[in-house]
């Protein structure tokens, strides 16, 4: 019995240690952001915030382009999610419900695009977008982000529709429903967890992307949140207060996703998706 208790203690100590190590950087980010900017460059720092101030946030929201960055990121992430979800759901359905040549090729193609070095796509896309006038536009960035969201989403939905039994649809056909209606009223509701997973990944990818936003957008009014907060690192000065405040705000959507979808994401990672 004592051995068992010792084991439990070791596990708890381990968990606390991990939570501290993983949590501390986040804590420090939030802590720095809510303190007055004057404390930034005067170490030693106290480990617990002593004075609170909204000055960093006020500067961020009213004196910088941050609201524009936020708007750009929301627009791009929204359309990337929408396109990825619609295209992947259709593809997943088509690939599991119809027989046609070239399926294996598509499977290999989607898997292969996992390997694409982002820069290898970035270089030709930069030249193509440049000549089409798609640099510094939403369309260009949405397309670039969808180049990751779609293969991943298709893969997840492909796996997902394999475990949605066809018998349910067949029952609906027998009772006279059209294929479209069956898709809408029978298949989609069952596939909802898969669709949520795909949307979450597509959103997270687009929201998190730095590389493509950096390559395609050089006009500061078209920056996203990630390239945006990085623009607070200047040659002459690094605006740490702004950076930490911006970083905290950007992290909030992620936090919401995890708290609400933790179990779902874990399950779909186990079942299909990234298997």
């Amino acid at each position: 019995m004592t051995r068992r208790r010792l084991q439990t203690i070791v596990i708890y100590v381990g968990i606390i240690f991990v939570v501290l190590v993983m949590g501390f950087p986040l804590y420090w980010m939030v802590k720095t952001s809510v303190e007055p900017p004057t404390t930034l460059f005067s170490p030693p720092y106290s480990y617990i915030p002593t004075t609170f101030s909204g000055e960093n946030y006020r500067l961020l929201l009213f004196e910088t382009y941050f609201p524009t960055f936020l708007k750009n990121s929301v627009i791009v992430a929204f359309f990337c999610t929408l396109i990825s979800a619609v295209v992947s759901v259709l593809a997943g359905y088509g690939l599991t419900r119809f027989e046609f040549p070239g399926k294996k090729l598509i499977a290999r193609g989607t898997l292969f695009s996992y390997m694409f070095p982002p820069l290898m796509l970035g270089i030709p896309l930069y030249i193509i977008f440049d000549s089409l006038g798609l640099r510094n536009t939403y369309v260009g960035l949405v397309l670039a982000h969808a180049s990751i969201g779609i293969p991943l989403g298709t893969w997840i939905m492909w796996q997902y529709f394999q475990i949605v039994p066809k018998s349910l649809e067949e029952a609906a056909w027998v009772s006279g429903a059209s294929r479209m209606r069956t898709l809408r009223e029978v298949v989609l509701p069952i596939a909802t967890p898969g669709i949520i997973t795909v949307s979450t990944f597509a959103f997270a990818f687009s929201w998190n992307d730095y590389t493509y936003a950096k390559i395609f957008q050089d006009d500061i009014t078209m920056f996203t949140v990630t390239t945006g907060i990085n623009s607070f690192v200047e040659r002459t000065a690094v605006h740490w207060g702004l950076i930490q405040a911006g970083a905290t705000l950007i992290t909030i959507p992620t936090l919401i996703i995890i708290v609400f979808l933790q179990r779902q994401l874990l399950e779909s990672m186990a079942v299909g998706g990234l298997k």
Partner: protein
Amino acid sequence: MKRLWSSAIERISVEKLWILFTVGPVIALLLAIGFIPMGYAIWLSFHSKDPFMPTVDFVGLKNYITLFTNPKFLASLGRSLQYTIVSVVFQTLMGLGIALLFVRPFRGKLFARTVVFLPYLIPTAVVGLMFSWLLSTQYGVVNQLLRQLGLIRFPITFFDGLKSAMYSVIMAGSWKFGMFCTLMFIARLQAIPKNLYETAQISGAGAFQCFRDITLPHLKSTLLLIVLLRGIWMFNKFDMIWILTKGGPLRVTETLAIFSYRIAFEERSFGLAAAASVVILVILVIFATSYFWYFKPSKEVEVE
């Protein structure tokens, strides 16, 4: 008879329309924003496309020869390998350790798991900037803490030191990417039937035996997949390194990805940069193919 035929034809064409409707978009988009640009990059790698030259000339293998005779390129290739291997090993071990700790139910599980999962979904740019601040030589709280604990006398130059920069970049990245491994391992661990452990315990197996004979074999396929995916992704990694060090100091963290970015968007030699990115892809394809051939994780990845 006639009617039967026409309905059959109708059905075939309706089905064809459905195939077109469902699979058409994915094929069109994958071609347009995936394979066609890729093909263009490969084409470009045999041409010279420079900033002040309007013409694009075929130069054969010249770009590749330029690359492989450039010591900076070869050095960046070596650093890419170092970065990838150390990262993958570290992240996998860390991911497995944390997953084993977190898989059993305990008090405060939701909170603890949220804290641990958060890093993986946080934007890499945020992670990079967070660590630049935490590990700053002058203003970093980690240096402050280490000094207060009496572990060091002078601050550690995490990202500015020639010896420490690479490892600091790897550690900062692992804080985020190691959590991918944790997530994958937890997902797999939860799927191991509990009665296996019960049976083993009844027949007198200890914790270590259970781990070796039940847990590890079940994790094998996940482990193989993690090493493959993380290997590919770390080899391609650009954003983390760029934000933390831009490849510096003195190029000690300049991996292939950083090297190609520099050539493309600072020197604007797109042909040469395309050749460098083709080299990255070829290495990855060789790695992935031999990996599949040797370990055969195909059961996990095969469709249907």
